[in-house]
């Protein structure tokens, strides 16, 4: 295991697309830009490309750091890079920011080419399938016909899965981590609470926030707080915070402040901090769009809910990973996908990692998780070098 002492330098890039992209909803986007980054080198037969799909609040900045910014690690830097489980010395890794996001690709804060006005709430609703179609167009431009692998966690896992359904010939392996074939009612419910928090913020202005020059930060904060609770497990929260009080409260004579509005418990302080941080950089319309994409994703829907029937079109080999304490994308949901793949006699491996960290585990270092992904990608590389891929 050799991890380079010097951090890998990442360079954000942008690809412009003039032609209209037909969306599932019936509307279109045209004159749009996709922000992306690549790491490693595309080999001569263009067979070593790995696409990484991002989840709710991440971006194309998957790995490495930006020049001169030591702390700017990509969101999956522990997984991807030179000598890392997805080894950029072997693979050409692509991170792409999805349409509707707020990190560089065309989104609600950009100008609608038809009206000359900022999209705001008029940005069309995009789906996982739309994102995958846009990613495929980017790959076309990069000259990549077939991916060695598509990789994603959570909502990113849904995109990886969707790749195997929309472009079965273009994916050799799919690595789907902490994901699900659709959201449960409870999961949609959490999204709805977050959306209501945003749209009922007086600063939301029906989504036309940019022309009002305001940010519905209160709504975004609460949306993030709710989300954050669901990404952790009860055990981890108890271990991290328990019933601990903030220092200022501990010092007080009465033990509590007997206030209903002060921040007294450490968990309150933590959630508020997370909410504040998030509301500084995330876009309200993007939050609405991305949670909606999560809600809508359901590839079995057109097959009467029969996931096995939906998976009949897959041709990829799969690695699925779930985490035992993840209650937002529980192991049971991954096992549904395993079962549907088994029913189609597809190659699938499934690791159920007994980790305490809830849904967040997919972004954390766990040796068992990292080793399984590392070995799986080593096998993919072995296939490449053996020429099996050709």
């Amino acid at each position: 295991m050799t991890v380079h002492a010097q951090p890998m330098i990442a360079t954000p890039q942008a690809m412009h697309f003039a032609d209209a992209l037909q969306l599932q909803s019936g509307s279109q986007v045209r004159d749009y830009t996709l922000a992306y980054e690549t790491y490693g080198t595309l080999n001569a037969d263009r067979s070593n490309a790995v696409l990484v799909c991002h989840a709710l609040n991440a971006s194309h900045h998957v790995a490495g750091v930006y020049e001169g910014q030591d702390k700017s690690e990509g969101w999956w830097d522990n997984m991807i890079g030179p000598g890392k489980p997805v080894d950029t010395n072997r693979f050409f890794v692509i991170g792409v920011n999805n349409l509707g996001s707020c990190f560089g690709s065309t989104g609600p804060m950009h100008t609608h080419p038809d009206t000359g006005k900022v999209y705001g709430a008029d940005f069309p609703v995009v789906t996982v399938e739309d994102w995958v179609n846009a990613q495929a167009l980017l790959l076309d431009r990069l000259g990549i016909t077939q991916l060695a692998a598509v990789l994603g966690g959570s909502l990113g896992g849904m995109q990886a899965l969707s790749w195997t359904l929309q472009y079965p010939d273009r994916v050799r392996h799919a690595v789907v981590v902490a994901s699900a074939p659709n959201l449960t009612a409870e999961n949609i419910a959490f999204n709805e609470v977050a959306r209501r928090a945003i749209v009922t913020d007086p600063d939301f202005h029906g989504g036309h926030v940019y022309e009002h020059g305001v940010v519905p930060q209160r709504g975004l904060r609460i949306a993030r707080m709710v989300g954050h609770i669901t990404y952790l497990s009860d055990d981890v929260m108890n271990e991290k915070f328990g019933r601990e009080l903030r220092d200022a409260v501990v010092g007080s004579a009465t033990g509590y402040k007997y206030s209903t509005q002060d921040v007294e418990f450490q968990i309150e302080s933590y959630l508020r901090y997370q909410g504040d941080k998030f509301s500084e950089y995330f876009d309200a319309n993007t939050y609405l769009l991305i949670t909606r994409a999560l809600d809508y994703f359901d590839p079995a829907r057109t097959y009467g809910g029969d996931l096995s029937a939906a998976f009949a079109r897959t041709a990829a080999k799969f690695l699925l990973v779930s985490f035992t304490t993840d209650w937002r994308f529980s192991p049971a949901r991954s096992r549904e996908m395993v079962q549907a793949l088994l029913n189609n006699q597809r190659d699938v491996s499934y690791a159920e990692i007994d980790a305490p960290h809830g849904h967040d585990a997919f972004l954390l270092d766990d040796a068992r998780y990292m080793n399984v992904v590392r070995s799986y990608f080593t096998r993919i590389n072995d296939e490449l070098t053996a020429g099996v891929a050709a």
Partner: protein
Amino acid sequence: MTHDNLKAIAALVPQGSRVLDLGCGDGALLAHLQQHKGCTGYGVELDDTNVHACVQRGVNVLQLNLDLGLSVFADQSFDVVLQIDTLQHLRNAETMLRETARVGKTGIVAFPNFGHWPNRLSILQGRMPVTKRLPYQWYDTPNIRVGTFKDFEVLAEKNGLQVTEAFGLQDGQRVDTWPNLMAGTAVFKFQHS
């Protein structure tokens, strides 16, 4: 499982079979069947280290707890279902035997034969056996089901399974004479009757 035992069991699996290996360990048997007999299929394993070993070998592995059943597998979806040194660890050994017959057209089970003479001798001397095949003390053994070659014949019949082949394995050699006495490992191949 020694390499010789592994080969003796692999010999029972027809060429090109679709195989499910319950409690597949590090995937050695499945890898052998893939490489030498053109088989395809999956292993089921609970242990993290073994799951990783399977991925390293390029064997499809599913990290599932067998004590929770085989509900993800469809009826008769495999040519052969293997339970090699697995049965003795399961709380629901009988259910799993029936499940094996449901999921596979053929089942192959191997387990340590408690009827092997050194074990009997130990019991006669008043102590639970500790041998190369059964290396654990009675208080820390993972083998929660101890049974004999003969016991399995009875269980198979009770569950309406037709045993098509049964023999013992000792030092990598097949034992057909008095296997219940002479072999440390019991092997059964069966199907629905």
